[in-house]
């Protein structure tokens, strides 16, 4: 009896140790960024990990000036959330159908999406620009969100399909017996159970929309519409980089993401499916 208790204690101790160690390893860059955001350029370049000699608070207002920080963050949020919504609305039904139905063409569709995941972004730039010019969508967020969605759909459908395939078919069978049509099964039964993967994909899409640079560089030229990654370029002038304000900007842009993440990840909790099959 005693032995197993010590074993248990040791095991959980080991677990905590590993967890904390990994947390430190992942946390320390945040600490470095935070400290650096209070230093001058010279201090940063010559000593990244030291405590700031003088707490230089001017980097923050400087960042706000250089990158129009609040506007950029707002734009990124808007784009990320819009992309996320459109992606989920399009991907979820597609994933459901691919995972549950057995029509032959669906295999082809799955193949198509698999190919979609593999496309290196740069080779699509010229064509996308051509389409954009042809449609006259210069500086259009709608078009950019559409592009972002297109490049996220494949991964989203992948994730959702994989997840739904792992769910017990008994759920929808039971619903079918009750007379539910496909749409109802999807919305009322599967969506709630898919909350974990939905939340996960939401975070992934959000991160993508927030930090994407290549397309926003080409498609958006109005600086009132710049997103965070685009505004970040403003810190590198022709021949030098303003590191202090850049780090300040990074900290500022991280905060909304942190908040959204904390809100969404509540959903990914164990025990979601308690009693699901028994109904």
């Amino acid at each position, binding site marked *: 009896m005693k032995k197993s208790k010590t074993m248990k204690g040791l095991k959980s101790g080991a677990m905590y140790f590993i967890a904390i160690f990994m947390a430190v390893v992942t946390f320390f860059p945040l600490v470095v960024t935070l400290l650096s955001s209070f230093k001058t350029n010279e201090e940063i370049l010559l000593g990244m990990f030291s405590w700031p000699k003088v707490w230089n608070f001017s980097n923050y207002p400087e960042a706000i000036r250089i990158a129009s920080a609040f506007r950029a963050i707002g734009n990124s949020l808007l784009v990320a959330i819009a992309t996320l919504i459109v992606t989920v609305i399009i991907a979820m039904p*597609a994933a459901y159908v691919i995972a549950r139905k057995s029509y032959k063409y669906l295999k082809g569709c799955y193949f198509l999406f698999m190919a979609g995941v593999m496309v290196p972004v740069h080779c699509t730039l010229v064509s996308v620009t051509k389409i954009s010019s042809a449609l006259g969508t210069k500086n259009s967020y709608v078009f950019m969100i559409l592009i972002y969605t297109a490049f996220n759909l494949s991964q989203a459908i992948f994730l959702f399909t994989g997840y739904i395939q792992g769910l017990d078919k008994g759920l929808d069978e039971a619903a079918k017996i009750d007379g539910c049509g496909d749409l109802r099964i999807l919305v009322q039964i599967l969506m709630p159970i898919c909350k974990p993967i939905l939340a996960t994909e939401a975070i992934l899409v959000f991160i993508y929309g927030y930090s994407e640079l290549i397309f926003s560089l080409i498609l958006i030229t109005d600086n009132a519409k710049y997103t965070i990654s685009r505004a970040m370029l403003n810190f590198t002038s022709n021949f030098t980089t303003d590191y202090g304000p850049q780090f300040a900007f990074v900290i500022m842009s991280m905060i909304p993401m942190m908040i959204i993440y904390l809100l969404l990840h509540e959903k*990914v909790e164990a025990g979601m499916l308690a009693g699901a099959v028994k109904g």
Partner: protein
Amino acid sequence: MGCSACPLFLLGGIFVFFKSAKYRKSFLKSLLFVLPGVLITLIFVIYPVLNTAWLSLNSWNGIGGAPVTWVGLQNYVKTLTSAKFWNSMLNAFYFMIGGFVVLMPIAFGMALLVTSKMKGTKFFKAAYLMPVMLGTTAVGLMWTFLLNSNFGVLAQFLKAIGHGEWIINWLATPTVNIWCVVLVNEWMYAGYNMLIFAAGIVAIPDDVHDAALLDGCTGIKKIIYITVPLCKNMFMVFSTLCITGCLKAFDIVWAMTNGGPMDSSATPAVLLYTQGFQYKLMGRSGSISIILLVLGLVLSILLNQIIFKEKD
């Protein structure tokens, strides 16, 4: 573009027409569910790929109005006989090794930790996701400084423990530099992939956990025999995303080393970019894209068939 598919649609249409009304209804409904996704992907992803494929058989300097000259397979020959290309494939391969040997266990381990009954999982979740939230630029900047052989933390640490002679210029030494990027990549994406695995773990119904407890299957045994098999789909998803991600790896490499020195740490995507947009060899760049695409497809299909035999 859509014209070649017309006869297929026609045949499909005829096929459906002859089935029962009920079949037709559910057939069309399924089609409708999947159509928006298919259309968007075809227009914005597949059409550019077809364009690239065509360009890869030509020589073009990327300037509007400049002649596009047919060269057949010459671009492919040049690419496949280029030492730089094979070096970049090796680098992509290193990425894959890193992905499966380092990233997968760590991400899965993190997922187990954050979905367990431990205290402070919320804090751990946030901490693990921190790197990817900082963004590639900031992460690249930070690690570049960290690895600076003069004032970087690693160098100072080595000096402090009396092993100053182990200090080399990590990011400028071939092979060492790509491995640094790979490890930073795993560090950054551990939390990201943790989310994917966590979703799979969380989907395991509680009664499975209860049954396992009753059977006396706990701890490591449970992980090996119950959790992992039930997350098979997520592993498959991870594998595909990992392979394609490794082949496409660009951002972190560019941020840390720009592919250098002398393209030693370049991945195929970096070569694609420099050859296309800096050297204006759009045909060559296109050939690299197509090779990556085909390779990715082949590897993913192989992976699916061989390792995860039960796919449907």
